[in-house]
């Protein structure tokens, strides 16, 4: 029966009906829905440890990005006579960064220091962004920089500066490699879960088989093969360096868990009542996917992301220890800690070369783990409105 066939209602009842609807509408407008994210943020804010971790990670990332701007000694500047100098904080600032004479006046068009100049100063190759930061740092701080408050290494390089430059590599490695794993894992898991049936079965069996392969050994194998001179030359021709390979390889290991988690989530979401309900009230397929399925997946994915980054960073440290990680003269925390372990001798205890990189690594992994745990609690729908 369509509306046109209905007998016209009496005006009085119609208006009463209308008023009731208007009242309901006004009431509905007053109720403010709390989105999943607002709710989660509210709960996360109450978790003090997670918030401290979050703050620490934000500050650390900012400092890592802005490292060239900070008054640090050049990380590759070797002062051999000061080798193995113990940590010292008095005076706090020294003029150890020698800016060479007669520059940059010779080339007025290029206000930034040239690459050759930077190499001579002990910074290594920098991109445009870092060079401008470095130029700003020279303008602000001149030759002043922090004393070696974390000590010096075998070649008299300042550990404090190297920790900051290492943070850039370590954080980047953790983040990018995890993102690679995420992309592979989410697509694979979502496809398997969405298609279901036999395809799902086969895809998950493949994951099972791959799970029981001790991948770390295969990875060591792959990286050492890629390390041979011939392959290196070939890779250089294609513009691939070891870091890229590392990203791909780590992505290839860590996607397995992600695929399983996402698949499980998709399968259960597909049959979930609220999805059914949304379909019944006529929500479009797009709305169901983006409004109902994706947010529920996203919470799992974010939690997994924060918990995988520390694993990847540990793995990078592990590979650096075996001499298969970041290549010198680049530094990462794992490489720094490894250098510390290498110089342990009975003659002198260079404790700072082990302790400080270990501390940097441990604090960051701590923060990531705590934040991951906090996010898991905050995004748990069973905790809603509590």
């Amino acid at each position, binding site marked *: 029966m369509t509306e046109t066939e209905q007998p016209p209602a009496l005006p009085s009842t119609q208006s009463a009906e209308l008023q009731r609807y208007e009242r309901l509408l006004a009431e509905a407008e007053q109720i403010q829905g709390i989105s999943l994210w607002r709710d989660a943020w509210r709960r996360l804010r109450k978790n003090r440890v997670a918030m401290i971790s979050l703050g620490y990670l934000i500050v650390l990332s900012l400092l890592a990005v802005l490292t060239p701007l900070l008054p640090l000694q050049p990380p590759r500047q070797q002062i051999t006579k000061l080798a193995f100098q113990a940590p010292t904080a008095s005076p706090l600032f020294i003029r150890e960064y020698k800016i060479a004479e007669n520059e940059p006046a010779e080339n007025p068009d290029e206000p930034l220091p040239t690459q050759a100049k930077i190499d001579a100063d002990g910074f290594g190759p920098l991109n445009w962004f870092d060079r401008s930061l470095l130029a700003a740092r020279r303008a602000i701080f001149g030759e002043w920089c922090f004393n070696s408050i974390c000590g010096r290494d075998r070649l008299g390089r300042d550990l404090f500066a190297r920790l900051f430059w290492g943070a850039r590599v370590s954080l980047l490695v953790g983040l990018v490699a995890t993102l690679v794993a995420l992309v592979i894992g989410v697509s694979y898991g979502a496809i398997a879960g969405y298609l279901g049936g036999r395809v799902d079965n086969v895809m998950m069996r493949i994951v099972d088989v791959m799970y*029981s392969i001790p991948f770390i050994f295969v990875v060591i*194998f792959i990286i050492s*093969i890629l390390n*041979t001179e011939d*392959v290196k030359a070939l890779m250089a021709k294609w513009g691939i360096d070891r870091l890229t390979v590392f990203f791909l390889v780590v992505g290839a290991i860590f996607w397995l868990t992600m695929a399983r988690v996402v698949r499980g989530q998709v399968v259960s979401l597909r049959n979930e009542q609220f999805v059914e309900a949304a379909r019944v009230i006529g929500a479009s397929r797009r709305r169901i996917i983006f409004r109902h399925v994706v947010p529920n997946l996203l919470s799992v994915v974010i939690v997994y992301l924060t918990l995988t980054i520390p694993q990847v960073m540990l793995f990078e440290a592990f590979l650096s*220890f075996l001499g298969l990680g970041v290549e010198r003269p680049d530094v990462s925390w*794992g490489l720094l800690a490894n250098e510390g372990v290498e110089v342990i001798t009975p003659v002198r205890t260079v404790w700072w070369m082990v302790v400080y990189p270990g501390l940097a690594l441990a604090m960051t992994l701590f923060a990531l*783990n705590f934040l991951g745990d906090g996010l898991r609690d905050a995004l748990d729908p069973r905790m809603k409105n509590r």
Partner: protein
Amino acid sequence: MGWFIIKRLGWMLLTLWVVYSVSFVLMRSVPGSPLSAERKVSPEIEQNLKRRYRLDQPLGVQYWDDLRRIVLHGDLGASLKIQDFSVNEIIAQGFPVSASLGILALAFALTLGLSAGIISAVRRGSLADFSMMTIATIGIALPNFVIAGIVIILFVFLWPLFPPGGWGRISNIILPAFCLGAPYAAYIARLTRTGMLDVLSQDYIRTAFAKGLSERTVILRHALRGALLPVVSFLGPAIAGVLTGSLVVEKIFGIPGLGVHFVNAALQLDYPLAMGLVLLYTTLLYVMNLLVDLSYAILDPRVKLH
């Protein structure tokens, strides 16, 4: 249960075959051969060597020949870099060393982890609970070579309790086993604590207390069994981690185990040795996981194997 084991072993063979094929393809796709080393030999001798190691055959033939030799005779070939040793001999020498280190590390992780977990669950909120869980969190966040470095500085140089490295005496194995087991002790402690807290709030524990049983009996006989389940399922990954971690720990402490051989073999492109060790590690991991699953079914009668 018999059927379950047979099925799992079937999957293991499939996995091993996949690993073998992947490693084979990887090894043979590298330009240059392991024989093209520092010292140049005359082309005739190189030809002879190639024939000796049958590197002159077509790849397909090599693939099937190697596979047949491994499957039928259990012969993993000869090492290309360690003179006069077959891969089987190297494994026979290194395996007992690595195995004793690994077992001790796991035993250590289990005893320390379980007792710390139980104590902190029972004395929840106490100073002991807080400090043990803090230490556990640190243990999880530190790579084991950093732990090893700190431990060496403390207990070898500053306070010389242990020798810095080597193998053969009891005192040689304690520090490496500690460094290898520490992260897993930390994980196990956290898992046990969570599991215990879950179990302790259940009705049957209250009943047990109400019956008048002593705290000790209730915790060790009634609660622990339930709390053990997550720990047991963590043992699979823990074993894998101990295998990997032994690469690092053996290198630091100079222990003549398999881990050192594996890294060197990979770095020097000693294909047969690296392949043999990867196959060995896969088998070990698979068998251990199978054992874990079986013990899980024994501990928890609700679990059905299929």
